[in-house]
């Protein structure tokens, strides 16, 4: 099964303190381990929500809203698409991530039979 891991790390604009070199190395090591285990199918980091847009649908009407968006805690800063055998396996992998803050949401991709 495939799961989408959403990193809800809050707002991390480019201007904010960049992660330390040590933290980056830790992250890279973790990510490499995931890749070597054949878990990562796709991954990406998102730029600040100030650069993002939202499109709201209301019947025939479409409204475009410019970022930044207010609900900082819910903002997605990055994502992984993982191939795992169970939700439990995804959780075990995620627990090993070298993060000291933020919330990570794991959601199963439905109706997918591929790998």
């Amino acid at each position: 099964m495939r799961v989408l891991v959403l990193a809800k790390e809050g707002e991390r604009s480019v201007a904010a303190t960049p992660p330390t070199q040590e933290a980056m190395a830790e992250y890279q090591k973790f990510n490499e381990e995931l890749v070597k285990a054949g878990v990562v199918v796709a991954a990406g980091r998102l730029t600040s929500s100030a650069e993002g847009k939202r499109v709201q649908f209301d019947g025939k009407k479409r409204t475009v809203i410019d970022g930044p968006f207010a609900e900082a805690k819910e903002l997605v800063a990055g994502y992984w698409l993982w191939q795992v055998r169970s939700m439990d396996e995804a959780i075990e992998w995620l627990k090993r991530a070298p993060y000291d803050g933020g919330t990570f949401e794991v959601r199963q991709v439905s109706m997918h039979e591929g790998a």
Partner: protein
Amino acid sequence: MKEPPIPTEAHRAIEAIWRIESARLIAGLARLVGDIGTAEELAQDALVAALEQWPASGVPERPGAWLMATAKHRAIDLVRRRKTFERKYEELGRDLERDDPGEDMDPAIDDEFGDDLLGLIFMACHPVLSKDARVALTLRVLGGLTTEEIARGFLVPASSIAQRIVRAKRTLAEAHVRFEVPFGPERVSRLASVLEVIYLIFNEGYAATAGEDWVRPALCEEAIRLGRILAELVPTEPEVHGLVALMEIHASRLSARVGPSGEPILLLDQDRAQWDRLLIHRGLAALERAERLGGAMGPYALQGAIAACHARAATAGETDWPRMVGLYDAVAQLAPSPVVELNRAVAVGMAFGPAAGLELVDALVPEPALKAYHLLPAVRGDLLRKLGRFEEARLEFERAASLTQNLRERELLQRRAAECAAERMAG
């Protein structure tokens, strides 16, 4: 796992951890003790210890290191009891000093993990074993699958799989197969054996040879995972990327090749919007890697290129059939076989018209290897139908239906036969 998993949170966590850790655990232990059977027993013992202790104590911070340390301690006990492997005992002692379980063990594990895993893959896929044995052992020690799960995948009784695995371990021990990563010319042939095993697993999932289901995605997923792991372990081997490309692209069609009631949908009839673009993208990238490494003409890379040829066409009508014929020519030169010739005939029929294809297929009819192969009459029926020879086509589809072991495929072929009968009436 030896014990049926009890679905408490801790047990589910342990099962997931086992899936993540078991291959490298068994690999590390196999390097130490020299044989897979003992390594797996030790790993299982560590798992049993975890099942006993973790529900009460909680899962340790580094579960993999805990399992490895526990298994190594048991290995020492075992070697002490056997008192025969003096040299191994010394090695174990040195190893334990280096990996003090109280310390952070990860660096030591990381350095050796890759080679250990590769050694285990080569051992489980050793040519001294039969194909069936290699497949079962690989799924067991590298996939972390239980005997029951493997049995379900191949529709055989669990006892047969268990027996296969026991016999495989014994064969390896009797043949004194060493735990090693081969180099040079030996590596090439040993790697071919590994790739064959992975592809066999994939194919059994992709086009189940028997049973009610047309596909068994779990086996495909397992094979692709093994392929992706192998591609990371030996990144400079073009054929590994060729095989990964082939599997990723084939898997991209998994949901498109099965209809709502489980019936197979043939490639040219599939809704291409349902093809998984991400897997196609990954497959094309893997193929490019194989080609960059000079492996464009490898057997798996060529089959990957054929799959890519379909994947690149936005509609069935846009398929580059002349290129496909060229690719099959190359496959036929490399590994001539009646099945390849049959596929080539299909491509020729599409590129240069059904009459040209039929001529090639007719030449294959006396081929003994294709005598019971249902796709020969299926292809012949298809070409005859295109030529308007509906009655002959119907008989071929009927014949094909009687030859396949797969229920879903039989239904599809019978439907084709019925369509031919209707077309004949209408014509």
